[in-house]
C-alpha cells in the first residue's frame, strides 16, 4: 500500500503546488508507515526534486497531458497499480479539474483545500471563504485530498527517488489547448503560489499610479494584487482581484495599500501569515486584521518602503 501524489509539471519541472502535494503525501505516508509515490506526465530532469520531498518513487508517463479526463484515467490506473488508498493533489486549477473526477472514478470521498495532515480521522480545511475551518471525515475506503497552496509547504531532506516509466489507456484528448496568454511579462509568481504579495485598492486613485506598487513588489520579489473595484473598473487585470469573489491567497506577507478592508476583501487574504496595512484613515477596518500598520499616504509610504528594502539588500 502507498500514498499517491499527482504532480503537475510546468516547463519540465514540478510546480510548487505539485511539490507541496508530494510533501503532504510523504508526510502522511510516514505517519501511516506507508510509501509515497509521485505521478508525473511529461519529461523531467532526474527525479524532478521529488525525492527531496520524501517520495520514494516517481511514476513517469511520457505523454504530456492537459485533458482532465485523460489525467483522471492515468491517475486512477496509477492508484490501482500501487494500491494507493490515499491520493493527494494540489488545490489549484489542475487539482480542481482532476481531483473530483478522480474521486468519482475511484469511488472515493474527497476533501478539497486541506490545510493540515489528517488527525484522529478528520482533516481540516477552510470554509466560508476563510472565515471558519471545518474538520471533515471521509467514510469511503479510498480518499482524495487536495492541498491548499502555501499551507503545508515543500518539505526537503529526502533522498533521490527512483523514476519508473508508467503508461495506461487514457482514451482520446477532448480538450485541445490552442494558446496561452501569460499573466505578466515579468515572470511574477502566480498569486495563489506567491509567498509575498503587494496589493492596492481604490486609495491609489487611478491606474497611472500603480508604478509605486509595482516598484515595491519588484524590490521584494512579490506578486501584485488588487481589490475588486480596482479590477472591475479596469485599472488592473481580473486575475489580480483577491477576496471572497476573487482569488484566495495565503502568502507569508500581504501588504495592502489604499484598501479599506471590507469583509469580502478580508475573506480572501486573512489567512496571510503577516498583514501590513497602509491607509490614510486610522479608522479603516483593515487595521483590525493587520499585524503592522502605517497610518499614512500610500504615495509617500510605498516609495519609502521600496527604498528601505533596496538599502537592506545593498
Amino acid at each position, binding site marked *: 500500500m502507498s500514498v499517491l501524489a499527482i504532480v503537475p509539471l510546468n516547463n519540465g519541472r514540478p510546480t510548487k503546488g505539485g511539490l507541496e502535494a508530494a510533501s503532504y503525501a510523504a508526510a502522511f505516508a510516514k505517519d501511516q508507515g506507508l510509501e509515497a509515490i509521485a505521478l508525473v506526465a511529461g519529461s523531467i530532469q532526474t527525479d524532478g526534486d521529488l525525492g527531496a520531498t520524501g517520495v520514494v518513487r516517481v511514476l513517469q508517463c511520457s505523454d504530456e497531458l492537459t485533458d482532465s479526463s485523460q489525467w483522471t484515467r492515468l491517475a486512477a490506473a496509477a492508484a490501482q497499480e500501487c494500491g494507493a488508498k490515499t491520493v493527494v493533489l494540489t488545490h489549484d486549477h489542475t487539482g480542481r479539474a482532476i481531483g473530483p473526477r478522480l474521486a468519482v472514478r475511484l469511488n472515493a470521498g474527497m476533501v478539497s483545500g486541506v490545510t493540515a495532515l489528517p488527525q484522529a480521522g478528520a482533516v481540516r480545511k477552510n470554509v466560508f471563504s476563510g472565515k*471558519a475551518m471545518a474538520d471533515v471525515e471521509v467514510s469511503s475506503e479510498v480518499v482524495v485530498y487536495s492541498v491548499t497552496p502555501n499551507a503545508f509547504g515543500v518539505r526537503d531532506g529526502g533522498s533521490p527517488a527512483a523514476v519508473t516509466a508508467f503508461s495506461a489507456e487514457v482514451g482520446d484528448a477532448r480538450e485541445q489547448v*490552442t494558446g496561452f496568454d501569460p499573466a505578466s511579462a515579468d515572470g511574477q509568481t502566480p498569486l495563489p503560489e506567491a509567498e509575498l504579495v503587494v496589493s492596492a485598492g481604490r486609495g491609489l486613485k487611478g491606474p497611472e499610479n500603480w508604478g509605486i506598487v509595482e516598484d515595491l513588489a519588484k524590490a521584494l520579489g512579490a506578486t501584485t494584487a488588487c481589490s475588486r473595484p480596482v479590477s472591475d473598473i479596469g485599472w488592473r487585470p481580473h486575475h489580480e482581484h483577491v477576496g471572497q469573489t476573487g482569488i484566495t491567497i495565503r502568502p507569508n506577507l500581504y501588504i495592502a495599500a489604499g484598501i479599506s478592508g471590507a469583509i469580502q476583501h478580508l475573506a480572501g487574504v486573512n489567512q496571510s501569515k503577516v498583514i501590513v496595512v497602509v491607509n490614510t484613515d486610522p479608522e479603516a477596518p483593515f487595521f483590525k486584521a493587520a499585524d503592522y500598520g502605517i497610518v499614512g499616504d500610500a504615495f509617500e509610504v510605498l516609495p519609502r518602503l521600496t527604498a528601505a528594502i533596496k538599502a537592506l539588500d545593498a
Partner: protein
Amino acid sequence: MKILVCISQAPDTTSRIAFTDEGKTFDSSGVQYIVNPYDEWYALVRGIELKEAHGGTVTTMTVGGAVCDPVIRKALAIGADDAVRMDAEPTDAMQTAQLIASYAKDQAFDLILCGKETIDHNGSMVPAMIAEMLDWPFVALATHLEVEGNAATLKREAAGGIEHVKVNLPLVLSAAKGMAEQRIPNMRGIMSARSKALNVEQADGTAMSAVRQFSLPPEKGACKIIPADQAEELIRLLREEAKAI
C-alpha cells in the same frame, strides 16, 4: 442550445459566521441568503447571453430544500426560463453531483454551467464530479466561452496565465471572473419570474464525507502601528521580528 446552470444558495458575503450545537451546525439565524456569486454573475449570465445569441433554453438546477426557492426565483428574474430543484439536503459534493448528473443524463443538455466554487463550502468539486459521472469534457475556472455550432472555444486560468482551449459539446465548466458581467433583474423580469416553472423532484443520494466539527480562526493580536515617517522601521520589523522577508 439547451443549457443547464447549477445554482446554489450561499450566505450573504457580509454574514456573521457562527456555529451552534457545539460547532456542529452553521448558525443561520439572521443570515440572508443570496445566489452563490460565481453561479449568478458568471455562469447564469453567460448562459443567458448564449441563449440570446443562439436561441435555446436556460434551466437552473439547485439541490436543496424549499428554503432555496427565493434565490431560484432571483435566477428566473435575471432571465432563466425554468428551474429544477432536487429536493434533498446534500451532505457533500459527491451527493450533490450525483443528483445533478442523474437528472441531466437523459435531458440532452449541450452545456452545464457551474460556478467556480460555493462561497460557504469552498469545495470547487461539484462541477468536475458531474463531468466524470456523465463522462463529458470539463473546463475548470473558465473565464471566457464562445459557442459555434458544436464547438466551444474557452479561456481558463492556468499556471501564470490564461490558456485557450477548444472542446466539443456537450461540456461541463466552472465559471470564474471574466466570463460575464453581473446583471440586475428588472421589474419585468421579477414579474415574469413568478409564473415561470419551478419543478421539484424527489431525490436522494449517498454522501462519502461529512463535517465533524466547525471552528473559528484565532483572533488576531493587536496591530502594531509604525509612524509614517519611519517606514524603514517596518522593514526592519518584517525582517527581524516577523521573519516575513
